[in-house]
């Protein structure tokens, strides 16, 4: 299907900014930890796990 050049450019820019992910739950938080983390954990799981197993848009089998 044909999409307008304007839309294709907007998608390209949106991707380039890199502000999208299937997993919305990480996006609003700068201090996200897994249940298994220690209280003192300093790993930024919001970044580390962005877009991986924790974002099950499909493939949960």
């Amino acid at each position, binding site marked *: 299907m044909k999409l307008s050049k304007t*839309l*294709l450019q907007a*998608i390209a820019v949106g991707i380039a900014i890199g502000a999208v992910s299937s997993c919305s739950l990480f996006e609003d938080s700068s201090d996200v930890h897994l249940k298994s983390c220690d209280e003192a954990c300093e790993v930024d799981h919001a970044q580390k796990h962005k877009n991986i*197993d924790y*974002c099950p*848009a*499909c*493939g949960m089998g």
Partner: protein
Amino acid sequence: MSKILASVACNLDTNILQAVLPLFQSEKVQAIEWSFDVLYNHPKIPRWFVELLVAFGNQNRLIGHGIFFSLFSGKWSAAQQDWLDHLKKISGNFHFDHITEHFGFMTGENFHKGAPIGVPLTAVTLAIGRDRLQRISEACNCPVGLENLAFSYSLEEVKRHGDFLSQLVEPVNGFIILDLHNLYCQMHNFDVEYKEIIKLYPLDLVREIHISGGSWEDSEVVKGKKIRRDTHDDAVPDAVFQLLDQTIEKCPNLKFVVLEQIGFGLETPESKIQFQKDFIKMDGIIKQKKDLLPNIKKKSFLAENSIPLGKPLEDKILHDQQIELSEILENSKNYVDAQNRLKSSTLAKTAWEIEKWEPTMIETVFQIVQKWKHGFVRK
């Protein structure tokens, strides 16, 4: 026969969009499937993504694919009502050609923790599934369908799955998604031939086909046996393309063939190029079939009668069993522990027929639930 649309599962995911963009630019993508509930708690969708959904929707080429409704939960939840309200709202914003969900129920305490696993095929689950599909139909006001599950506990269940799907969608005049990678998982895991398994599905009800990749897991129970898992994290195997080639012409009401891959599986430039090659190959197979398909008017799959909806059906025994099963699979030390606990659970000697569950499948469902039980997070 009208056209079959070569489609992609397209979500708001950087890797997926990077992989799909060249296909958009070359006008290869004829429809998109959007998992509208993945952004359920976070409705800030970029304007350009909204425009993408609108563009495909306006051409009757946008389809919605739910993940988290948990169709067979024995107890109705506020989260399910919220999900329906959300579906009703977005169905007013976007034009979906149809809406689909998955077979099974979600383990876990909320929509974003847990995994979809099977339920016994009984009159109780049939009634609950039908009740939920009627509510989805009422909310979206377009055709509604259900996808076959990759995971099964036993060969007997595999053999009954297609007929049960047919019974489930009947009151809403619904259809099924035939996920060929899920079929491939069942063929391998239960050693069933294609010609045997395919005739167990109501192929006249197939409006959508999925293809995807997956992964192999070494079984500890049966040394040397590999279990096929529906993880969507790799390219489409040749065997699944062969299934597509063999199946299209058997489905007179087929409208969409969708290529799915999880964003995590599309991180490298090579994997994105492979995704594009898979799409081109899929499109080529569809085009080859064009002249072989019967020239008949396809079913609309629109609900024919509006059925008055009362209070949502519930079954306390089923709910309690689902809670107990989830707890066992989430908290057992290992699959042997899970197996032993199941034997002394309230699921023993019931319609769940845990006595017939394949040991390799208990091992697999334990791994699936363990993988997803943390879903997310403490803040």
